[in-house]
């Protein structure tokens, strides 16, 4: 797996479409939604847990160094309501992930889209919008 060091400065339109919404903590306090990263790696673990599902991938850069990424998803309940199951990802899957990286610079991100090697695209990552006001 080659690390794809593309930090994508997303356009305003893309931002509006893909800006993740509030979960049980502030997204904006944790992630920089203006910088998207693209990672290609192998799934090492999929946690179908609350308050957020997570999956972990190993990304190998051209020099052979392996980075262990932790990628956050929405809650399993909200993901189920949008087509996910606990089998949607599994260890060994090869994936290309577009994510917002954590502001603290760790190998942590909030997944935006996931493309599996069989062509399957998983797209609903974020929790739903905050409760209604007017």
């Amino acid at each position, binding site marked *: 797996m080659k690390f794809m060091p593309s930090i994508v400065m997303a356009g305003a339109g893309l931002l509006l479409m893909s800006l993740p*919404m*509030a*979960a*049980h*903590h*502030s*997204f*904006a*306090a*944790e992630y920089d939604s203006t910088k998207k990263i693209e990672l290609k790696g192998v799934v090492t673990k999929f*946690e179908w*847990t*609350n*308050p*957020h599902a*997570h999956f972990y991938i190993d990304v190998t850069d051209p020099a052979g160094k392996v980075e262990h990424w932790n990628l*956050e998803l929405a*809650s399993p*309940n*909200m993901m*189920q*309501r*949008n*087509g*996910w*199951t606990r089998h949607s990802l599994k260890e060994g899957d090869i994936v290309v992930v577009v994510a917002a990286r*954590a*502001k*603290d610079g*760790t190998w*942590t991100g909030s997944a935006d889209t996931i493309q599996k090697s069989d062509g399957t695209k998983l*797209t*609903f990552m974020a*929790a*739903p*919008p*905050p*409760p*209604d*006001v*007017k």
Partner: protein
Amino acid sequence: MRKSFLIGTVLAATIAAASLVVAQDAAPAPGGGKGPAKGQTRGGKGRGPAGPTGPAPRMSDGTPDLSGAWMGSGSNSGDISKGLKPGEQIIMQPWAEALMKTRKSQDDPEANCLPTGVPRGAPYPWRIVQTPTHYFILFEGNIHSFRQIFMNGKHPDDPDPTWYGHSTGTWNKDTLVVDSVGFNDKFWFDYLGHPHTEKLHTIERYTRTDLGNMTIDVTIDDPGAYTKPFTTTGRARLQPNTELLEYICQENNIDLVHVNAPAQLP
């Protein structure tokens, strides 16, 4: 009152447990891929279609029937001042304003899997269960808990401060009026960290305007933190074909180590 607390607690726990069993047994298929399942809406600030249309249902005795799974709340969970009724404003006591400026997102009780209190909503569905003596609000999240509303009840003289307070309910025509006191000062009104004190008194007004929609007005009176009462308004949308699912926030709450920033919007 202590007896009614006990009865209410046991009854609520029973109903909540039964509801969960039903939810897990009867939960609909989770939908077919991208976006909400057929007949569902995501709710949110004008996003997606409105809820189903038709007249608001009534129970056999004529009482408005508030049943169903709902998304939404009576205030803006990001910034409570955004949900104010026209002409309303929030003026904080100086100490409250100073406290708010020191708050950090990782200390938000909601982020720590603690209750949102009143009136802050969470991005998960909830359900009202009406019995002759008690109404219950069952929450899928932020914590998998419930509020109990003592219909035509009275507040205790000196209630212990709690996350959801002590709530009594009455009907004013077709509006359920919920009066609550006895709150602790631990929960935040929103992601920005608007604070409150144990003097908090809330009056919520729930009106099911039609089959798929509910308006919720909340008057907040806390002379300990604000110079005068204010009222926020919001709405909830019915979530057809949705059952509450189990949500145990404490299970794997591993993200807060990365949430190191001043309290801010979602």
